[in-house]
C-alpha cells in the first residue's frame, strides 16, 4: 500500500452563493492508483473536480497536487494534469487530429513531439481511421475516447475524469474501463467521479463515497463492503420488532435495520452457518419466519448504509434491501 499521496485535499469547502456544494471534504490519492469519488447527482463531485483542476477558485481548504500547492502554484498544477470533463467539450467543426493538435499547442508542446504523440494516442484509443473526421460525425463512445486521448496528450501525471462513461451503452462502458486501466498501467494516476457503483467497484483501488457535499466513507471496495460485516441476512417474520430485539442479543450479529417488510442483519460470521442458528432462536421465542435471504454486501449496500438512500433513485429514502438483500422480494 506504499506509494505516497499525489493529491492531498483537506477541509475543502465550496459554495455557489447560498448553495453549499462542498462542505468540508478531505481525502488523498496515492500515486499510481485509480481513485473514485462515488456519489449521486448533486453530491458535489464535479465541484470538487473543478476546484482541483483550477476551473473554480479555491475558496477554502488546502489542496496539494503533484507536489504543488493549488492556491500558490496553479500554473504548475495545470501542467501536471489531464482532464476529461463531464460534458463533451469537443469542437464539432474540428477533426480528431486537429483537436489533439490544438491541445498540444495550448500546452506549448514542440511540433515533433506533438506529431508523434497524436499518432500514438489515436492508436491507443483506436481512432486512427477517424483521424481526419470532424468530431460532429463521431459516436458518443468515440467522442469519449478522443477526449481521453486529449487528456493524455501532454503525458500528465494525473488524469481527471468526470463521469467518464455517462450516457454510454454497457459494452462501450466496458471498453472505456479497459482504456482507463491501460492508461493507469502506464503509470498515470486516475481520479474519477462516477455515480455508477459497478464502475467504482470494478475500476478503483480506493473509493470515497460522497453525499450532500461531504465524504461519508473511504476505503478499498473490499474494505467498504467488509465494514458492513461478513454477510447480510434478510428476514421477514411474524413480529419484526420483537425479532429485532431477539437478534440484537446474538453475539455475531452486528447492526440491524428495519425495512418495510422485514429486517436486515449485518453479521460478522459466515452467514451460511449463522442463519439456521438465528432462525432457531426466533422460533424458540415464538416468532415465525416467513422469508429469508442471504448475500455478500455489495457497494450498493455500503452506499445505502452510509447515506440511508439508494443511489439509483436518490431522494426516495429506500434501500435496495427493502424487499430483500438481492432487491427482489423472496417468495
Amino acid at each position, binding site marked *: 500500500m506504499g506509494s505516497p499521496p499525489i493529491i492531498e485535499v483537506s477541509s475543502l469547502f465550496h459554495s455557489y452563493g447560498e448553495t453549499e456544494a462542498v462542505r468540508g471534504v478531505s481525502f488523498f490519492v496515492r500515486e499510481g492508483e485509480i481513485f473514485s469519488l462515488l456519489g449521486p447527482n448533486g453530491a458535489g463531485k464535479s465541484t470538487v473536480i473543478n476546484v482541483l483542476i483550477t476551473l473554480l477558485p479555491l475558496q477554502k481548504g488546502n489542496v496539494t497536487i503533484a507536489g504543488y500547492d493549488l492556491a500558490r502554484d496553479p*500554473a504548475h498544477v495545470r501542467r501536471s494534469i489531464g482532464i476529461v470533463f463531464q460534458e463533451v467539450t469537443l469542437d464539432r*467543426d474540428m477533426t480528431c487530429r*486537429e483537436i489533439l493538435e*490544438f491541445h498540444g499547442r*495550448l500546452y506549448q508542446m514542440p511540433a515533433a513531439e506533438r506529431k508523434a504523440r497524436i499518432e500514438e494516442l489515436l492508436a491507443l484509443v483506436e481512432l486512427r481511421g477517424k483521424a481526419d473526421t470532424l468530431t460532429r460525425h463521431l459516436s458518443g463512445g468515440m467522442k469519449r475516447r478522443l477526449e481521453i486521448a486529449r487528456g493524455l496528450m501532454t503525458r500528465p501525471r494525473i488524469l481527471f475524469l468526470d463521469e467518464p462513461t455517462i450516457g454510454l451503452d454497457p459494452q462501450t462502458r466496458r471498453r472505456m474501463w479497459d482504456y482507463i486501466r491501460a492508461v493507469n498501467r502506464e503509470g498515470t494516476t486516475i481520479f474519477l467521479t462516477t455515480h455508477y457503483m459497478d464502475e467504482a467497484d470494478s475500476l478503483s483501488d480506493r473509493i470515497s463515497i460522497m453525499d450532500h457535499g461531504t465524504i461519508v466513507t473511504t476505503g478499498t471496495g473490499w474494505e467498504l463492503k467488509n465494514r458492513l460485516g461478513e454477510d447480510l441476512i434478510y428476514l421477514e417474520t411474524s413480529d419484526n420488532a420483537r425479532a429485532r430485539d431477539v437478534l440484537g442479543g446474538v453475539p455475531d450479529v452486528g447492526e440491524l435495520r428495519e425495512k418495510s417488510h422485514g429486517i436486515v442483519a449485518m453479521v460478522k460470521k459466515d452467514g451460511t452457518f449463522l442463519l439456521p442458528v438465528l432462525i432457531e432462536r426466533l422460533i424458540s421465542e415464538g416468532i415465525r419466519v416467513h422469508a429469508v435471504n442471504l448475500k455478500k454486501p455489495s457497494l450498493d449496500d455500503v452506499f445505502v448504509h452510509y447515506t440511508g438512500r439508494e443511489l439509483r433513485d436518490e431522494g426516495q429514502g429506500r434501500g435496495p434491501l427493502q424487499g430483500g438483500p438481492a432487491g427482489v422480494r423472496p417468495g
Partner: protein
Amino acid sequence: MRQWTGFLTIYWRDMLRFFRFKTLLVSSLVQPALWLAFFGIAMSANFARLSSGMAPLPGIREVGYLTFMAAGVIALTTLFTSLFGGIVILFDKNWGLMREVMASPLPRGHVIVGIGLSGMTKSFIQVSIITAFGILIGVEFFSGNTPVQVLVSLLGMFLFVGIFSLGFVFLSSAIAASLESPEGLQGIMTLLSLPLFFVSNALYPAAVFPPALSALSAANPLTHLINGVRYFTIGPDFQVIGVHYALSVQDVALSLGVLAVFTAAMFGIALWRFGKAVVT
C-alpha cells in the same frame, strides 16, 4: 517556455474554423461587396440627380458618391465584423469548449489577443475584397497615385482598419465574457452599433450635423476610422455632392491616436472581464 506565442494557438484555431465552412466564408465576403454594388449604385444615381443643379465648388477635386460611400462601406463592414468577432468566446463558453483553454496554462490575455487577431484578419480579407471589387465597378480610389503611393495608402488604410478592428473585437470579447447566454446578444449589438453608425460620417457628411451631434461624432471611433480610410483611399482634399472634405496630416494623426487609445482601453476592459469570468 515560448509562452509568449500562446495567442497564435487561439488564432490558428479560429482561422481554421473560419475557413472550414465555405458557404459561411463566401457569404461573409460577398455580402459587403454586394451591398456596395447595389446600395452604392442606386444611391449614386439618386445623389447625381439631386445635385445635378448645384455647381461644384471651384478648384477642389470632385469625387463621385460611390467612391465616397465605398470608404464608408469599408468602415461599416469592419465595425460589424469586429463587433461579432468576440462572440465566439460566448459560444465556446456555452458549448463548454472554453474549459479546455481555461484549465490550460495559457494566460487569459493570450485568448483575447488571439481572438482579436483573427477578427482583424477577417476584416482585412473583407476590406481587400471590397477595395478590389469597388475599383472594378468604378470606385475612384488611389486616383493619380504612383504604385509606391498606392502601397503607402494601402498600408495606411490597413493600419486604421487593424487598430479599429482590434478595439471592437476586444469590446465584443468583453461583452461575450460577461454574458451568460447568447440571448440578448443581438439586442446589445444593435444598441451599440446603430448609434455608432448614425453618429458618424459613414454615409453622409458630418458637416450637416447640429453641433451636439458633431461633438458626438468626433468622439465616435467609427468617425476616426472613416477619416483615416478616406484620407488614404480618396485623398486629403476633395468634394462630394457639394460638400468639401479636408483632412490635414494632423487630423489623421489625431484620429489614429484616438483609435489607439480606444483599442488599448478596450483591451484593458476585455482583460478585466475575462479575468472575472468563471467557466465551468
